[in-house]
């Protein structure tokens, strides 16, 4: 069998002997891999454990609620009211924590008393369990407590960027007074910032939802969504069953029937949104994943077909060498392996270039690219931060390798095999 050193040297020789063809091939691979990698990075960021959403495998979401009057006089659909939160989500045995988040997480104004500068901040009105469901790292201070919620205290946890902007550093922020939407609020904690890409967890200032005036103003539906951290050993079905039971009990005492579309959804289901869940809320996981896999495959196969032409040209130039090797004992399968590996070296170069290109593409389009085909990621005005764990993941490297392998096999297997079927004598005569 030909040695690795010779394989690499042979691949380099191909680059030297046909630089234009090689450059076109590597560029073609790079562009194909870029397309797939951009898609992969988007879904990696949405699906993999990424700070502060480190527990995505245990997270579940309850958002939409439909309330229908039992007498048929009306129907409304939105999120949960405060009463529903209390009736449905208290004492859940299947969940370690339940983050309750108000939909009023809009840009707010912040001022430091005595100063006239107006700062903007993305606020998140939530409860203490929010900091259990999401793994926020406290750089200084503490999260707000159940007592703060019960008392509706105006306290805030800032993210480090906002703390730095307001007070210079995290430590200096603790205990300071700020005005959030002109309401005096005390800073009690500072967390390492998350990314705006993860909209459910992102915020620059976190406050108790009970600090919102009229937070418990009730209707059949309301402004609250819930994110659950499922207890280890429990399943999403356990959680669903438990909440269904709570709803059944709660609804039996009122004149409204509530329907929650087979929620809570897992993080997977939540990410893929309507593409992943049918009208009745049933997961269509295999179908949707298959759809994404086919899209990725097409993104690779179409350029692979085009690249085959370049491969055929390259292999035809080498038909004499192939015939010589066959004359001296190389088998067809051994030569096929050699050609495929040599080509894989070039494909890998293209794939690595494609990976870097995809980083560049994602970086420059980060403000909008993560909202593609997504119903819940909001494009905040602030530019989303891209952390190393979002881009330098073993999963992504594995995808690059798989993409390169698919491209290599799809573009070079048939041309190589075809050339190797050429009679030795004919190839030798052509070389002559």
């Amino acid at each position, binding site marked *: *069998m*030909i*040695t690795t050193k*010779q394989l690499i*040297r*042979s691949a380099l*020789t191909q680059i030297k*002997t046909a630089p234009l063809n090689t450059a076109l091939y590597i560029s073609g691979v790079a562009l194909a891999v870029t397309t797939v990698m951009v898609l992969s990075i988007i879904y990696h960021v949405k699906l993999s454990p990424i700070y502060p959403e480190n527990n995505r495998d245990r997270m579940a979401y309850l958002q939409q609620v439909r309330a229908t009057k039992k007498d048929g006089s009306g129907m409304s659909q939105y999120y949960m009211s405060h009463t529903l939160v209390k009736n449905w989500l208290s004492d859940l045995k299947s969940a370690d924590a339940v983050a309750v988040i108000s939909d009023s997480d809009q840009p707010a104004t912040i001022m430091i008393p005595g100063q006239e500068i107006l700062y903007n901040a993305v606020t998140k009105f939530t409860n203490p369990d929010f900091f259990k469901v999401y793994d926020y790292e406290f750089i200084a201070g503490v999260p707000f407590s159940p007592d703060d919620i019960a008392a509706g205290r105006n306290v805030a946890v800032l993210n480090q960027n906002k703390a730095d902007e307001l007070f210079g550093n995290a430590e200096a922020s603790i205990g300071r007074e700020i005005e959030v939407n002109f309401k005096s609020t005390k800073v009690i904690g500072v967390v390492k910032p998350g990314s705006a890409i993860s909209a459910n967890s992102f915020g620059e200032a976190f406050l108790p939802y009970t600090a919102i005036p009229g937070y418990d103003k009730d209707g059949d539906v309301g402004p609250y969504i819930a994110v659950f951290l499922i207890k280890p050993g429990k399943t999403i079905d356990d959680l669903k069953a438990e909440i269904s039971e709570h709803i059944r009990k709660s609804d039996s005492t009122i004149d409204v029937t509530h329907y929650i579309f087979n929620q809570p959804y897992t993080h997977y289901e939540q990410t893929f949104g309507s593409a992943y869940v049918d009208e009745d809320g049933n997961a269509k996981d295999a179908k949707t994943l298959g759809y994404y896999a086919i899209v990725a495959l097409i993104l690779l196969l179409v350029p692979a077909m085009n690249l085959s032409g370049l491969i055929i040209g390259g292999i035809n130039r080498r038909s*004499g*060498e192939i*015939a*010589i*090797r*066959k*004359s*001296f*004992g*190389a*088998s*067809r*399968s*051994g030569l096929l392996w050699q050609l495929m590996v040599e080509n894989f070296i070039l494909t890998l170069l293209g794939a690595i270039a494609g990976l870097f290109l995809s980083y560049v593409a994602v970086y420059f389009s980060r403000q909008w690219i993560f909202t593609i085909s997504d119903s819940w990621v909001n494009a905040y005005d602030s530019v989303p931060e891209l952390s190393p764990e979002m881009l330098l993941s073993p999963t992504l490297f594995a995808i690059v390798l798989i993409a390169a392998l698919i491209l290599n096999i799809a573009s070079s297997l048939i041309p190589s095999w075809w050339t190797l079927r050429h*009679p*030795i*004598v004919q190839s*030798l005569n052509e*070389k*002559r």
Partner: protein
Amino acid sequence: MNTIISLTGINKLYRTKEIETLALENVNLSINEGEFVSVMGPSGCGKSTLLNIIGLLDRPTSGTVKIDGVEASAMSDRSLARFRNNELGFVFQNFHLINSLNVIDNVEIPLLYRNTPAKRRRELAMKVLERVGLAHRINHYPSQLSGGQCQRVAIARAIVGNPKIILADEPTGNLDSKMGAEIMEILHSLNTDDHRTIVMVTHNENQAKLTNRIIRFFDGRQVQ
């Protein structure tokens, strides 16, 4: 003497859409172990086709080829490759060296396909290159060598795997007389010193006369 090459009733027909060409017609031939045989005849008479069939590079349309007692017609592609690797060495008129490989890597090719360890490959390749007088050129590329030197590399490649049979297709055809004589000297030494069987296609009557036997072809038929 043992028969090492045996051809029985060999026909080779080339077909295209328009015409059929009978390149070899009912060839029956035996070559003994250790013989140095010349194949002669005018261009297009089937000499090279015969050599390709003996070398298992091409299959006859009909007939039986036996090399060292093994019938080749039923062999799979992989078995043929292994058999060529062990039993046969080729020297071509145009040398057929791989231009992207240097001298020693070219010579090592047959050993690569029998999984000889790298160190041993280098030893064996150096040994045969010393024998053909090119030990000082191991890192040169074919484009940096003269025609005679290229053919000596090709001979080194043909013998490095220690095959019993060497098939040479007009080995001096592209060389001047001095270089041609040097190559013939090496081939004779391989025959007399190493007792290798050599089948050589040639147009050179003088070179042929120095071999053990001359087989003459005309229009695909063996005439002598």
